């Protein structure tokens, strides 16, 4: 056991898996000697050699395609896309190729590969260092999409993703790399060290894909969250004295429908929250699922607290970000209606 922040936990996941399985290789822009712009791959090249951790040309399409070829060969590549905002040049390879290879070959070729990428706002990164494009991948059959919210899960989920035999999109909420952020941007931030989920085993363990975690039990309302928003949800519930059940989805495809249904059946009210733009976000799918499956338990419409339908603005970040006021309002609405 060590106390780790998310970067350290993710680094440890790489390290553990590269030591266990020499088919695990790491590629991406600046991931080699430098160890990645967020230092998630630090030390790996030194330890495992240049042929197993190396810098890639600035071509997200090429990075994903090369990873596909490597996975088809039999390796387990872990590709880093430097920011999720830059994943789109690789979109065709992810959607048309990675997502469909097993299906179109009737299982003859499959692709055990992970695409890791920091996502989300809260760091004054402006339009191109703040986006949350997870919904674009959730719509594509054949892909799994995972989003951790703390160091313990980050390591365990990443190991599970590397061991998974299907392509996994692994979105890392960069705002909470160094400490949980609860959305109160004007208060000091606590480091991970003070959080129980920063206690991370040094060795191998997994957190299973497709399983949500109930991170706060409550009776009045269910909040469905992932990534940074898990912390915002917890803080908002506290701040507003709401007896909310907060569910950290951890995997959005396949989503843990049982845990969701169980909770909403109990509380009868539901709020979904994400940073991504509202229209067509994953919150729409969650709201659709909840009303389809728990309609007669619902006492109020499912509310969505989300990023606005604009590009991510730089200086107006705190007016844009779905923080405690936006989520609190949605929770109140779900309770009052």
């Amino acid at each position: 056991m060590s106390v780790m922040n998310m970067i350290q936990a993710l680094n440890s996941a790489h390290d553990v898996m590269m030591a266990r399985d020499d088919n695990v290789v790491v590629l991406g822009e600046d991931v080699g000697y430098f160890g990645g712009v967020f230092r998630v791959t630090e030390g790996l090249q030194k330890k495992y050699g240049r042929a197993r951790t190396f810098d890639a040309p600035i071509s997200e399409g090429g990075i994903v395609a090369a990873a596909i070829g490597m996975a088809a060969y039999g390796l387990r590549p872990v590709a880093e896309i430097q920011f999720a905002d830059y994943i789109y040049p690789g979109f065709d390879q992810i959607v048309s190729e990675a997502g469909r290879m097993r299906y179109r070959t009737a299982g003859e070729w499959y692709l055990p590969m992970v695409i890791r990428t920091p996502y989300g706002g809260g760091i004054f990164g402006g339009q191109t260092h703040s986006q949350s494009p997870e919904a674009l991948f959730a719509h594509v059959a054949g892909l799994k999409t995972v989003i951790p919210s703390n160091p313990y899960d980050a390591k365990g989920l990443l190991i599970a993703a590397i061991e998974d035999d299907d392509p996994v999109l692994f979105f890392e909420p960069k705002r909470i790399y160094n400490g949980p952020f609860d959305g109160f941007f004007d208060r000091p931030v606590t480091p991970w060290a003070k959080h129980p989920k920063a206690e991370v085993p040094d060795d191998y363990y997994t957190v299973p894909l497709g399983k949500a975690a109930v991170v706060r039990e409550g009776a009045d309302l269910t909040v469905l969250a992932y990534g940074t928003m898990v912390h915002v949800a917890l803080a908002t519930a506290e701040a507003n004295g709401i007896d909310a059940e907060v569910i950290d989805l951890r995997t959005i495809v396949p989503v843990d429908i049982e845990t969701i249904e169980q909770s909403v059946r109990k509380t009868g009210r539901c709020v979904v929250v994400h940073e991504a733009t509202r229209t067509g976000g994953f919150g729409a799918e969650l709201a659709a699922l909840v009303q389809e499956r728990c309609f007669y338990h619902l006492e109020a419409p499912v509310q969505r607290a989300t990023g606005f339908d604009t590009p991510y603005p730089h200086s107006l970040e705190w007016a844009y970000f779905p923080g405690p006021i936006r989520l609190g309002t949605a929770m109140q609405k779900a309770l009052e209606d």
Partner: protein
Amino acid sequence: MTKQPERPNRPVLSLHVPEPSARPGDEVDFSHVAIPPAGSVPRPDPHAPAAETHPLATTLVRVLDDAGRAVGPWDPKLDADTLRRMLRDMMLVRVYDDRMYRAQRQGKTSFYMKSTGEEAVAVAAAHALDRDDMCFPTYRQQGLLVARDYPLVEMMCQIYSNRRDKLKGRQLPVMYSDRAHGFFSISGNLATQVPQAVGWAMASAIKGDSRIAAAWIGDGSTAEGDFHAACTFAGVYRAPAVINVVNNQWAISSFSGIAGGELTTFAARAVGYGIAGLRVDGNDALAVYAATRWAADRARANHGPTLIEMFTYRVEGHSTSDDPSVYRPKEAGAKWPLGDPVERLRLHLVALGEWDEARHEQLAAEIADEVRTAQREAEKHGTLVSSTIDFPQDVRTMFDDVYAELPWHLREQQAQMVAELEAKRK
């Protein structure tokens, strides 16, 4: 639109849009095609620096001359058995193409694509590569499968999307896949396979394996960003890969000028990346063989990738959905000055004294028979029309292989579909 500023001293610009040398109604015109004599192009050592190959990127490696003789330094000096086998494979591909094309016209499947005139590009390459090198083809390299003895019946069952189709009817006809024959799944999305091939080759290098990857891409498709990624990654990491640009001079209705072919050759792209590049007469099976072997040897020696332009001509339409007479003269295919690859190899064997009219006819008859038999066998397992009506594939397989395991939502959807089919049967 804001008004253009007054700039009286400046010349007026105009947009250049490339046009082919002849359109329907025009005389076929191949006068712009420069054809150096067979045997005239030097052969660098496969271990030479890439730059030594660059003069070869703008000429044409040719081995077979008009009399059917193999001449010059690129002559691979193959034994007669190999030559006969290559001839047989090419002839078989052509017959197979004709039969499947006809099957589509008969409504037995939805779609077909021929490789007429381009058989050498696939067949000779397959013979030059090791059997376990991995091929990343496009939809016009059925010759690779034939040359590697993939059963015709399997190929046809894929075309028919029938009960025996190993791809479970999921893929458009011609989108074969067979791992055991080193034939990577064909994608409908152009160019995607080329950087994948490079990734596969990188993996082979990472693991200290000795197998290499070979990829094929059409002239038109080189415009995709994936082609650039492939060349960049292959060069940077010296990936053991052979990247073949099959320049058949057309991309559906667009001639190669729309992909940049007016400006330079496709092999010249290699110069831009600083990797080895060769331009080869793709209708000359010996030249294709020799260049492929050269590139494979180079890759195996850790000298990295080679880009080969296989210069050929798409003799027929793009696919069963296409009518080329709408956009080019009808006789264009027949008048291609570099001839027919099957005929040229046959002539060579005859010139060697290793082949004659009688044996040729016998082989043709055998092939026709083989294809006919295979077709009969394949059709026993159904064709697309019948598939469509009674869903002979177990429709529940529709949900398999999306993931390794069936998640809850697909399980629910599967149940929903089964219920629908039951409702339909009523």
